[in-house]
């Protein structure tokens, strides 16, 4: 699955939000969108999800035009957004249900792997914040669409849980052939997770730079303290600094 954005621009009335955004995500690639808060990252997701129509430009998935069409991507929001009346298992298969392809066995297997064996039939309010995000990610992963859009999924978690979740996300993702488009405003998170980082400027958002992340996979947390990682972090901070973060 590869996703291509061509010259996307979007304004709301007088307010110009996105200007001339072009980028592509290759099959199986992990791409982060890094930019200051309020720079229109979520608007870009709504465009890819087909909820909004760009003023200019088009969006392609595998060469097929999906501009302003819904149902082609899988989505994980900032808040876990689990349905309180559904059990963990029922929540996990919601994405499948929407496209009428239920596979409970696969869901159970993934939930067990995520350490949620005892919670399969529990309700979301019985889970911790990190567990809820795991379920939300599994829900996105189980959806038949293989392009996943993750909108700052870990920003509401505490630092320890966040690192745990990042490691878990990498492990889980590496086992599947999914492409991920990941919104974040955390430099370290972007570097640790992605193959490619798209840096946005503040409003109107334009692409400041696209950086290839050179680190080998599989990655683990020891990478975070190596010299090349810190160097890359410094460079990225510099680029962001010029965009008046």
């Amino acid at each position, binding site marked *: 699955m590869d996703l291509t954005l061509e010259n996307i621009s979007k304004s709301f009335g007088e307010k110009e939000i996105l200007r001339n955004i072009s980028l592509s995500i290759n099959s199986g690639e992990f791409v982060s969108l890094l930019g200051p808060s309020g720079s229109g990252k979520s608007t870009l997701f709504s465009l890819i999800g087909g909820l909004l129509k760009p003023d200019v430009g088009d969006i392609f998935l595998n060469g097929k035009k999906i501009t302003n069409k819904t*149902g082609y991507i*899988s*989505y994980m929001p900032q*808040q876990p957004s689990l349905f309180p009346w559904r059990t963990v298992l029922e929540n996990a298969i919601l994405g499948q249900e929407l496209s009428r392809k239920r596979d409970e066995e696969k869901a159970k297997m993934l939930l067990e792997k995520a350490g949620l064996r005892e919670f399969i039939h529990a309700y979301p309010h019985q889970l911790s914040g990190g567990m809820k995000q795991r379920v939300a990610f599994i829900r996105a992963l189980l959806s038949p669409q293989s392009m996943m859009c993750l909108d700052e999924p870990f920003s509401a978690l505490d630092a320890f849980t966040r690192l745990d979740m990042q490691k878990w996300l990498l492990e889980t993702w590496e086992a599947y052939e999914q492409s991920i488009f990941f919104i974040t405003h955390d430099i370290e998170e972007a570097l640790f997770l992605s193959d490619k980082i798209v840096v946005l400027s503040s409003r109107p958002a334009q692409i400041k730079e696209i950086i290839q992340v050179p680190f080998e996979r599989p990655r683990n947390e020891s990478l975070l303290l190596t010299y090349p990682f810190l160097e890359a972090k410094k460079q990225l901070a510099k680029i962001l600094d010029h965009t008046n973060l």
Partner: protein
Amino acid sequence: MKKILLTSWRPAIAIALFICIWEFSTRIFQIETWILPAPTVIVMEMQEVLPAFFPHMVSTIRLVLIGFSIGTTIGIGVATLLHHYDKLRETIYPFLVLSQNIPIIVLAPLLLIWFGLGDTPKIIIIAMTSFFPITVATLSGFQQTDRELIHYMKMMGASKRQLFMKLELPHALPAVFSGIKIAATYSILTGVVAEWLGAQKGIGVFMTLASSSYRTPRVFVAIIITMLLSLSFFALILLLERMFIKWNREEIK
């Protein structure tokens, strides 16, 4: 259960005290039975009159259940319709709220003229009293659906039907039940009062007969049983709510 016992002993004592004061004051001040019968007199009357009372009760319950079911079904249906058609909602909703302020019982004489003395006018009155609270509660339940969850569903490409069946309907269930609870308490009362206006059988008929012949203890019997019926109907709805909404209850716990 323990919790219920722990918290309910105070009101239980208060009620017992109230009944005692009532009993003794009727004896001390020698109040005539047809003005205010003592609780013991009411209990004795109840034992005596219950076999004769029973068919009246059954008749009222039947009317209420029919009217209430019709009101609930139409209420949820109308709320669903208004939720999906914005223009219709904007047109009808103010009218709905306005009509809630008309005491339905004042329409009763009119309905009697139109539909005669049979069950129909009474069923209509009960259905109407149930209809309004359920419609308003259900509609606000639909309208208050979590924006984040709606956004998720839309991003995932959910159809309008999926959005409604998988999100808005289950999300509104607690609101629907709070409407149903209000309607349930009203409906028994409305049923009894509607029967005052004319019927062959029913608690209301029993009451008017008893009061016109100054058999005050019987009036009290009817009042107490109406209260008990209202309470049990409410408890039944509560039970249904707990069966349907497991997640909410556990949240409270």
